[in-house]
């Protein structure tokens, strides 16, 4: 018992030290730097390659929904009841040709289907087949302006009272496996997985794959958008680059 008491005491001292260190500007800038190193290393080593695509037989029997399971508004319920006929995905910001796309518009674009693995930041994985147009097709249609550095995704759902949103850089935006999915395993997206539209950005963790998409916005900087860190979870301390 005494030894355990000593261990707990030593751990408490060490932990207190660690949390003091973590709060210093030096530690914070090291944390930010390591996020840049991770991104640079992954981009260098991965070289823009594709993630593995699986066989239909490897699809997991159920695709868990995490975070928001629905959008808790009467407007969403009404739109869902009407098959999302009135749903629009706007493309705005630093583009020469702003767009407002219906589900039909999106389904008439060239489609990509990919059976990929979804990795949650918590640690679990699920495999599903996603279908939709590549984000690059949509961005090309809107004609990105030269100043655009990031693509911001606006969502209909709220978590703990705040609007969900996400952002990625142009490298991920133009990756061939980055798509705006309207179908999972050949069926319209289930509500818990982001109906009617969600982002698939396969080289990053699950929280980057924004659900219930309403808008795509090209921006030069993430400052001034919501909490300024580029995403709902990023504003709550999570890494913006979630490839690790």
């Amino acid at each position, binding site marked *: 018992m005494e030894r355990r008491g000593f261990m707990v005491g030593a751990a408490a001292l060490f932990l207190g030290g*660690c949390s003091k260190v973590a709060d210093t500007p030096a530690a914070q800038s090291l944390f930010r730097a390591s996020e840049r190193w991770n991104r640079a290393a992954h981009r260098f080593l991965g070289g823009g*390659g594709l993630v593995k695509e699986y066989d239909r037989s490897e699809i997991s029997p159920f695709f*868990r929904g995490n975070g928001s399971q629905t959008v808790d508004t009467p407007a969403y319920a009404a739109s869902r009841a009407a098959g999302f006929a009135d749903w629009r995905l706007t493309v705005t910001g630093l583009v020469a040709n702003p767009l407002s796309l219906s589900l039909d518009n999106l389904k008439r674009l060239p489609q990509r289907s990919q059976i990929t693995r979804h990795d949650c930041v918590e640690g679990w994985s699920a495999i599903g087949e996603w279908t939709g147009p590549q984000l690059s097709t949509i961005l090309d249609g809107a004609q990105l302006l030269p100043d655009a550095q990031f693509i911001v995704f606006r969502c209909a759902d709220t978590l703990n009272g705040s609007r969900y949103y996400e952002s990625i850089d142009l490298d991920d935006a133009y990756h061939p496996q980055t798509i705006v999915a309207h179908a999972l395993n050949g069926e319209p997206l289930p509500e818990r997985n982001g109906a009617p539209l969600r982002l698939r950005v396969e080289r990053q963790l699950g929280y980057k794959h924004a659900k219930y998409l309403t808008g795509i916005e090209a921006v030069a900087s993430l400052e001034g958008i919501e909490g300024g860190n580029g995403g709902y979870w990023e504003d709550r301390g999570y890494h913006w680059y979630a490839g690790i």
Partner: protein
Amino acid sequence: MKRHALSTRLWHWINLVCVVILFMSGLNISNAHPRLYWGDWGFAPEDAWLIVPRFPDWMTIPGRYSLAGAREWHVLMAWPFALGLLLVWIAMLANRHFSRDLTTSRAEWRWSAIRSDIAKHLRLDFHHSGSKFNFLQKLAYGLVFGVLLPGLIATGMGISPGMEPLLSPMIELVGGRQSVRSLHFIFAWLLFGFFVVHVLLVLLSNPFRQLRDMITGGRDGA
């Protein structure tokens, strides 16, 4: 000649800090989803081969549940941990520490030799002549340097989706991403097991001299 080369000593203490922070932040990350699976996917308790107990706050970094905070520590300390291992391997090969002290001879693998080594260990008799380390030490250090430490780095990179384009052949070889994640966890606990035995044996074999020598270098044969 010094008992421990400068590169060994520097790495030893830097690596200790890295491993302690990586292990304790890893336990916090484990608390986020305390289930382990084999294969490519898994999310439900019935898919799991192991339901991991929740680690108490005094064992984790930060000292309360925070997946975001734990991940900041974990992916930062992974850098000095991985680069340090790479550099110490280069140093061990260059200064012949590896070939001189850590490689085994065929005779050492004979069962009779291993048995007498174990018997001596159990009597807490750590004297041995001829080489710096006895067979069990070489085996332990060989496993740590050759399997556990590089294995932790490889499996850590293997569960990162950003590394997937490069590493998916390795991931498939192991049996899928959730298998790689399980291995990451198993390697971490094997390393913890090594840590406990290592500290115990230092305590049993003149700990003050051992600690002093790992700081100042000591003298060979002293």
